[in-house]
């Protein structure tokens, strides 16, 4: 497959099976799609439909049972685990439903962590951290620990951490799932802003159709691991 910068993510007959009892569960089954670069896409579906599984495949945290998944033209299925780690470090950022900030580090240290893992030098790190903190409007809270922040602030910090490496693709798994609706809206607006201001491709997993329709420009519907619809919003 030729590398194509205009396609951020592209799946081809992507299948991920899990062994269960005697048989197999197909969490993702024969899924093919393309997400153009700079897109804000929402991955919708009921619980257990395979959204998280698909997102993890895009993140290079998991490997497909069969099929191919390309990120910026490179097939993740063929990468070594070392290469996948580098891909996660440089190309994608992740945001989780549970925030997953490290409780014993300050916000600053949490946001800085991906830069440490990427072996960036210290001066540049400080610059990147303050830039990311500014974008999520947490510059004043950098010395606090996650437990001293509200849920919305914690998720904003998690978004800053996902952005600090300036990834091409931002993957978010139910980022508003633990937040009240006002705070959730705030996070959604933040993601939209990042998408339009930085041109970051965003894939958002959610089961809240309304919210997705408000912000995302492309909808992918999953049912029982199969892609049932994939289309740009009119």
């Amino acid at each position: 497959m030729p590398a194509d910068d205009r396609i951020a993510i592209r799946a081809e007959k992507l299948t991920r099976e899990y062994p269960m009892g005697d048989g197999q569960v197909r969490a993702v089954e024969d899924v093919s799609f393309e997400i153009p670069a700079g897109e804000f896409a929402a991955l919708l579906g009921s619980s257990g439909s395979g959204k998280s599984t698909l997102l993890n495949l895009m993140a290079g945290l998991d490997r497909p049972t069969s099929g191919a998944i390309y990120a910026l033209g490179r097939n993740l299925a063929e990468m070594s685990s070392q290469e996948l780690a580098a891909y996660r470090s440089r190309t994608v950022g992740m945001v989780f439903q549970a925030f997953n900030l490290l409780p014993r580090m300050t916000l600053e240290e949490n946001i800085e962590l991906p830069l440490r893992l990427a072996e960036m030098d210290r001066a540049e790190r400080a610059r990147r951290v303050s830039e990311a903190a500014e974008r999520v409007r947490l510059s004043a809270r950098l010395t606090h620990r996650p437990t001293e922040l509200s849920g919305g602030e914690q998720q904003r910090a998690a978004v800053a951490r996902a952005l600090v490496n300036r990834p091409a693709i931002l993957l978010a798994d139910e980022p508003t799932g633990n937040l009240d609706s006002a705070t959730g809206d705030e996070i959604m607006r933040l993601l939209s802003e990042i998408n339009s201001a930085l041109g970051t491709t965003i894939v958002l997993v959610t089961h809240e159709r309304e919210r997705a329709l408000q912000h995302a420009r492309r909808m992918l519907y999953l049912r029982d691991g199969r892609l049932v619809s994939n289309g740009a919003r009119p």
Partner: protein
Amino acid sequence: MKNRDMIELAARNLRQALLRNFLTTIGIAVGVASLVAMLSLGAGLQGLASQKLSQSGLFNAIFVAPRVPPPRFGAPPNADVSPAAPPRSLDDDARLAIERLPGVAEVYPEIRFATEIHFADGIYATVVAGIPNSARSDGAFDGMTGTFFSSPDADEAILQISLARQLSTQPRSLLGQQIVLRYAERQPLPADPAPGNSAGGSPGFSLEPREQKLRIVGIVETEPAGGFGGIGRGRLLIPLGVAEKLGAAQAADLRDLLRDPSAPHRYANLTVRVERTSRVRSVEDSIKQMGFATYSLLDATRDLRLVFAVFDLLLGIFGSLALVVASLGIVNTLVMAILERRREIGVFKALGAADRDIRRLFFAEAGTMGLLGGVFGVLLGWLIGRGINFGTNIYLARRALPAVTISLVPIWMVISAIAFSVGVSLLAGMYPAARAAQLDPIEALRYE
């Protein structure tokens, strides 16, 4: 991840479960301490033994005998006979040549003869031995009563305690008194000897009865080992120079009778003292090259060193056991840490950490505990060694014995104990590190 960040994170993680990691580190320290205490005891005792042995003078001496047909009177049965050079007679020229060899401190013949001494109207049969001046520093005369000979040719005598007891019920009172030595002097005969000339009545030389007055200056308890061939077995010790001057007939002289009587005087054997034990081998080789048979106790020390090596090994094994047990503590602590830090490891991986980074982080934690444990352990072990030393010397002092060093912590032991501690800790960290690295990030991050 860069090393500095790695160490920073490792230190942070260690501080987080402070009590647990502290206890684990203490465990390692105790393990290292027991190892160091054991090894220091081994090193100390070995040092003590070799110090005493080198003081005895046995280990820097070489026994030289002519490599001859005919009979090898003074030579020990296992004298090393090398076919390198033709045999040569052990005469004054040879003695001079050996004296000139580098590393040689002194060369002297063994002089030992049976005689009788007169003291306070009594006559006592005994064996006289000539003692070289170098024996002064041997240690054999360390605990003696009285003094060593005032000069290498003073007319003085030191008595073995058994002889002293024969002479007097109060040996100390003998100091300063005079004894008379009666002996047979070897006198060369004129070129054309007349038969039946004297007491010896043999063609090579005659034996003349002589007397020599000696002043008692010391009494020695232990048997001084002045070299090989039994100098130590003399009961009346006189300076070697005096003994040589006396020219008393010795058992080995009979051999000369059987050979060419006109030949110059030959030594039955010579003892060579070497400046340092480390030079014994080279000096011995040179003497062999000259055409003599040699023997040194170095071969015997080799066995002794083997015994100490085994001894050290056993001490080391017992000492290491505690460290091995302590290393299980590291395994336990780190496996616990994995369980606690599951989610954190998942986050690290999601943010771009490679398996290698996770493994190195756990190794850094294990290594840090090993390093701290090693440093504290060496300190503790050293203190234990000092304690043993202190206790032993109190015990020795009560019995009026001189103080000794039985526990020794040389710098190589400090370095290798710490290195060993770090090594064992890293080994112990291998399993937890591998397990942490293999953790599935999706499992670890699954929202509960």
